[in-house]
């Protein structure tokens, strides 16, 4: 087992542990705080795959920006109310079964599936600089899905604005 493997297992185990802690903590602030190291270690896996650009974006967007917004919302909760709530209820059994089926499906896919995909060549194209490779792929081969994603984001943004707007003001 080389250094590479040791690093992979370290990152993977921390991701699993922190993700489990994030969904199992009753205090939402702690749940969000545990997600931060989780995202950092995902970035670590990107570095192992020699995708530095994705690694840094992984820190910039989910860890840097999204988590701050989550914390912003979670801070405004009344924690004494949350403490009285139960974390399980009648639907827990059903949800557990669905989750188990989902897990089995994903596990089968991960073990038996083949990932042909253009992603492999992105990872392996060490000849070109990482950023150039990602940019090139986004603006040539994947231009349509890329623009579509930005359109979807725009629609979501307008939706949020319409929902948040108060009648009569401004």
């Amino acid at each position, binding site marked *: 087992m080389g250094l590479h493997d040791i690093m992979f297992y370290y990152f993977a185990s921390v991701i699993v542990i922190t993700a489990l802690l994030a969904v199992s903590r009753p205090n939402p*602030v702690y749940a969000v*705080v545990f997600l*931060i190291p989780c995202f950092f270690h995902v970035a670590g896996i990107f570095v192992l795959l020699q995708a*530095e*650009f994705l690694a*840094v*974006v992984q*820190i*910039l967007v989910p*860890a*840097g*920006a999204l*988590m*701050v*917004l989550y*914390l*912003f919302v979670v*801070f*405004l909760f009344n924690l004494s109310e949350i403490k009285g709530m139960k974390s399980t209820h009648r639907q827990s059994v059903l949800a557990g079964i669905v989750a188990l089926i989902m897990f089995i499906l994903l596990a089968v896919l991960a073990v038996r599936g083949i990932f042909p995909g253009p992603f492999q060549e992105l990872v392996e194209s060490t000849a070109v*600089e*990482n*950023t150039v490779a990602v940019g090139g792929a986004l603006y040539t081969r994947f231009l349509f899905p890329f623009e579509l994603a930005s359109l979807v984001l725009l629609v979501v943004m307008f939706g949020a604005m319409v929902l948040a707007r108060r009648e009569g003001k401004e």
Partner: protein
Amino acid sequence: MENVWIYLLIILLKIVGIITVALGGVTVMNWVERKVCGHIQHRHGPLYVGPHGILQPIADGLKLFLKEDITPTNVDRGLFMLAPIMAFVPALLTFAVIPVGPHLMISNVNIGLVYILSVSSLGIFGIIMGGWASNNKYALLGGLRSAAQMISYEIPLGLSVIGVLMYSGSLSMTKIVMAQQGFWFGFIPKWFVIPQFLGFILFLVAAFAETNRLPFDLPEAETELVAGYFVEYGSLRWAMFMMAEYVAMISASCVIVTLFFGGWLPLPVIGPLVEGILPSNVVLYAMPVVWFLSKVAVFMFFFVWVRWTFPRLRYDQLMSLGWKVLLPLAIFNIFISGILRMAQLN
């Protein structure tokens, strides 16, 4: 195998060296800030500890170190302890990719600029965690303000450097500096501040907001929030928040110099004159560091100068400046830079 250990040792030495310089810079900055503040307000500032009070920061550091470490009763203990560390560490991480000289940097990664943006966006966790964990309404308000402010100003900060990217064609900090070599008409340096003046102004304003310095220090606004997010902190934990602010200020100055003022490249007019009379070894190895540090010093003075000159913005003014002025200007800058660059290349 031995080569690996030597390699690691060299990296470790570089890290220790940079951290030492950064923390030394904090001490000097602390003295400069109080001295400049004093003179701006027609006072002398610190005067008694050492000549012109130059040993005052050391005396203060010792005082903070020896103070009792108090943890209030109703705080969230884990996050309360974690917050000062979370504020301090990201501020130091930025120095890993800043080139002080042609080969003098911890790591020459090819994504240096994005790395700096992402790491500087992490310092906010310390502030908001400290604000929430303190279990104090002033601290929480400071933390919330800080979250809103940093999210709003990260966007113009990120967009304002895109113009620089178009001109340099690389995210690597070393290549960005190399792209600024040369002169127009023999004496005007090809620093990016000239073609990217709007970008520079936007970056400067956003950097002030990101480092929580006046006129954007709303998270700690003394007149409304007592001290904001660190109101419950004392002794060394408080000192860590304070040092984080100064380290962030130094690293912001370093980034401004690297992106817009040619990093380690010599100053125009004075540069050739000074380098002409020095031996070639000194010019090759020592002078880049001198040029870099002297440019950084100018910006650090500028940070202090602005702090004691301008009043604090109101919260709604802060938000409308960020979203309604800086953001459209940043997009306009990208548009104009794109056209200019295309015209230049064809």
